[in-house]
């Protein structure tokens, strides 16, 4: 998820920065617009950002014998749609790159693309699909956050594979190797993230049902969620 400082060759680093920049700019405008048009949403927006802050800092052990971080971006994507997360996720990444030496500034573009763009969008689409298929808010939030997490790491694996193709097997071989490092390890973490996100949404439903209804997250038919 967080490619370390200097571990993407300059060309790749620049390319990913260019790729993610428009999303981050659009995201910044979306945040400003959201706050300006709906100042009452500031608390929920802060909660979404805080959730990302918390989850991306926690290192959890995994069944493969290694450890990794969840991403925490799915919740904000479900509440406010993906563009907002492009900015919030990037803020978290900048914080971590500067203060924790986790990730980097040269790799900020790539990390933002995986964690602040791809993750939230996959989460959002999953949320919409799961909502339509199951009608359940809890299931949709769970699926959205778990898959947002996994999608982030798959993207990171792809970014690394493109930058460091295997001399023998090329990009596919490198992709398999990086997925081997990140993929299986991340699965229990993604499931845990989904479960925690459901807990947070339940708490939000019980304290701010009108806000969530206004955001079109909570529906009148969702009465059972907070029980």
């Amino acid at each position, binding site marked *: 998820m967080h490619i370390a400082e*200097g571990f993407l060759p300059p060309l790749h680093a620049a390319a990913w920065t260019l790729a993610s920049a428009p999303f981050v700019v659009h995201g910044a405008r979306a945040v400003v617009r959201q706050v300006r048009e709906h100042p009452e949403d500031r608390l*929920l927006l802060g909660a979404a950002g805080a959730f990302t*802050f918390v989850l991306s*800092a926690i*290192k959890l052990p995994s069944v493969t014998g290694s450890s*990794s*971080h969840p991403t925490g971006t799915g919740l904000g994507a479900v509440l406010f749609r993906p563009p907002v997360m492009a900015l919030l996720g990037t803020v978290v990444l900048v914080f971590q790159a500067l203060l924790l030496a986790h990730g980097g500034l040269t790799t900020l573009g790539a990390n933002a693309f995986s964690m602040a763009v791809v993750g939230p969008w996959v989460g959002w689409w999953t949320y919409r699909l799961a909502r339509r298929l199951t009608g359940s808010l809890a299931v949709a939030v769970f699926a959205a956050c778990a898959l947002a997490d996994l999608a982030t790491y798959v993207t990171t694996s792809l970014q690394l594979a493109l930058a460091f193709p295997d001399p023998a097997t090329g990009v596919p071989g490198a992709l398999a190797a990086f997925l081997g490092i990140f993929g299986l390890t991340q699965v229990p973490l993604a499931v845990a993230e989904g479960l925690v996100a459901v807990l947070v949404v339940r708490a939000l439903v019980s304290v701010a049902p009108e806000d969530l209804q206004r955001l079109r997250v909570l529906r009148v038919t969702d009465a059972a969620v907070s029980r």
Partner: protein
Amino acid sequence: MTAAIATAAVLLVALSFALAPSPPEGAEGFTGADSQATQYIEQSRPDYDPWFSLGLPVLPSQVESGLFALQAALGGIALGYAVGRLRGRSAT
């Protein structure tokens, strides 16, 4: 229901931890996947050098863990504050 979900999450992490293979002799267990990726790159491309560094001091791992914990704590405080304010607002 809340208790069930919370229990499931805790059990998942605990089981994940318990079922993990033991680290080889002398090696530290549960190394980060991020650093494993870095090591993989360094091994498969010995000639690759990270070309940029912020020049920040390399922190001992305990301090690094402490800073991560601080980040999580700050996020937790913000999240708790938001939920509390929302609750207070809807109570009036």
